[in-house]
């Protein structure tokens, strides 16, 4: 197990390294930040100074080497636009995005799995059919549209919930969060619901399919033949089996929920990394874009690592296969 964890860690480092190269090349190969950052009236000398100041005059590989050395030291360059460390900008916005993504995932898991279980256990019931129909909607409606409709209904018509911003934040171990205050929670609700809808539908469908499949298995019939209560058959024998794919999907989706937060953050003016990225792309603020991509990739890789470890803890067959490997 420890060996496996170590190997996965090493793999993660390699992935990060490869990603840094790809990100660096793709971002530094497009556009010219000088055009944007230096005033059009500037003379050649000023432009020259700006280029040298930003290190853009040196060969690409040298820029990358500098970038890598600094990245390893936690320095991803200064934002062209704000002239402050890019990584600082990203990290400052990260808690807002993580809170939004976490809240969305919580909603998706907390509703999706029970709804899916219910629909799987009573596939013929009207409620199960309603759940399935709803999940198809949740699947196919675009996020921005859902967000706008929610704002329309709950903010504009009913006036129950605020339409934008993060509301007041409370410090939790030095990190500003919204969910600890009533007002913050009210701000969090709509964006989290918007972001959650797709994942909720996905999880409900996945759980339903898994439940249906597990219920048809001999081991469930055998568990019933042993005289176990339905509660135990479903809660232990069925759930533990379908948890393996569900945890995998949750892990993978946690990464994508952070990425998809971009749209939701833009609609609800949620001050997270996604909104920062959109602004940075607008002015070709390369260090910020690079910092965003690298931070997101790091999150992805970390989450995958945790999921893999959780996966092997859940499924004894995987655990054994690794022990042999």
């Amino acid at each position: 197990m420890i060996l496996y964890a170590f190997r996965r860690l090493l793999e993660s480092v390699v992935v990060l390294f490869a990603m840094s190269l790809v990100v660096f090349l793709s971002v530094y190969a497009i556009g010219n930040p000088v055009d944007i950052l230096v005033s059009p009236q500037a003379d050649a000398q000023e432009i020259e100074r700006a280029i040298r100041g930003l290190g853009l005059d040196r060969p690409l590989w040298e820029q990358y080497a500098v970038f890598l050395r600094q990245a390893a030291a936690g320095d991803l360059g200064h934002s062209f636009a704000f002239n402050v460390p890019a990584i600082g900008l990203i990290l400052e916005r990260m808690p807002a995005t993580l809170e939004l993504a976490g809240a969305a995932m919580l909603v998706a898991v907390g509703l999706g799995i029970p709804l899916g279980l219910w629909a799987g256990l009573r596939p013929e019931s009207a409620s199960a059919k309603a759940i399935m129909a709803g999940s198809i909607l949740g699947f196919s409606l675009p996020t921005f549209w859902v967000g706008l409709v929610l704002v329309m209904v709950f903010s504009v018509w009913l006036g129950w919930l605020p339409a934008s911003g993060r509301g007041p934040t409370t410090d939790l171990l030095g990190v500003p969060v919204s969910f600890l205050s009533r007002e913050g929670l009210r701000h969090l609700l709509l964006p989290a619901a918007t972001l959650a809808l797709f994942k909720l539908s996905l999880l409900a469908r996945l759980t339903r399919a898994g439940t249906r499949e597990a219920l048809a298995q001999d081991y469930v019939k055998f568990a019933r033949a042993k005289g176990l209560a339905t509660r135990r058959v479903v809660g232990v024998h069925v759930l533990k089996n379908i948890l393996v794919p569900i945890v995998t999907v949750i892990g993978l989706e946690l990464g994508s929920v952070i990425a998809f937060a971009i749209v939701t953050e833009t609609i609800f003016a949620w001050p997270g990394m996604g909104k920062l990225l959109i602004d940075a792309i607008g002015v070709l603020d390369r260090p910020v874009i690079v910092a965003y991509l690298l931070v997101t990739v790091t999150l992805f890789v970390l989450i995958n690592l945790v999921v893999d470890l959780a996966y092997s803890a859940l499924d004894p067959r995987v655990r054994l296969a690794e022990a042999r490997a």
Partner: protein
Amino acid sequence: MTVATLRVENLRTHFFTRHGVVKAVDGVSFEVRAGRILGLVGESGSGKSVTGFSILGLVDPPGRIVDGRILLEGRDLRALDAEGLRALRGDRVAMVFQDPMMTLNPVLTIGTQLAETVRAHRRVSRAAARDEARAALARVGIASPDARLAAYPHQFSGGMRQRVAIAIALINRPALVIADEPTTALDVTIQGQILAEMQSLVRASGAALVWITHDLAVVAGLADEVAVMYAGRIVERGPVDAVLDRPLHPYTRGLVDSVPSRRARGEPLRQIPGMAPSPAALPAGCAFRSRCDRASAACLAEPGATLTRDGREVRCFHPLEAP
């Protein structure tokens, strides 16, 4: 006279499918006494498993028991509610399934799967349930049971898994065990071992055993009585030696003749011509009619059960011997 451990009277279990009613079990009666073994034989689809599941109250929709009585130690199981049935399952009546690779839950340890069976029926501590689990594994011949409790099913061979399933079935000392082809998926040596062990375990505990199989050779070596099923009905029933040596029903005769070991070497095996009818579209009258060389116009009606002098029962208008 003591009451039979299991008495099934005129059991009918039908499946109400989109394509019509499948009469999987259609008027089955038999009984098994404590310490006795009944072999339930018949070809694939004849309704053996459905009979077993009916007794446990585990027939799922679209199937339903539509008629008959199932008396376990004198108690009518059809009169019980869901909780009453649950309390009996795994306690007074247990079942072993055909495929040991599928019956154990892959993500729970053997120890958990044994102990939960104990705790579903008796209020005992975890430690006590674990002790019982260890003892149950030892009883079915699993070495170092203590270490095995923490193992998962995939760490066991097929034969070992079936032993675990048998240990689970027997752990609460049931009055009745239904074994649904538990050795079919295993190789011959293991099959022999498990048969012998099962026989002695059941004899030792005084449980009644219903052994479902399509293998007459197994029945000959194991059972006291045999019931031959065809298309949802029992066509012949009686002491195993009498039925296999002098079958009365043409279908039983055909089954006996198609077993290699019971015929002289070199003689060609005989087969029953034709195919079993689909239980969704049973012909009126005797269901074996289209395959039977003794059929007559009388067989267009449904044959009733005839009791013979030596205590056998046969459903045929023209049995091979006068009853």
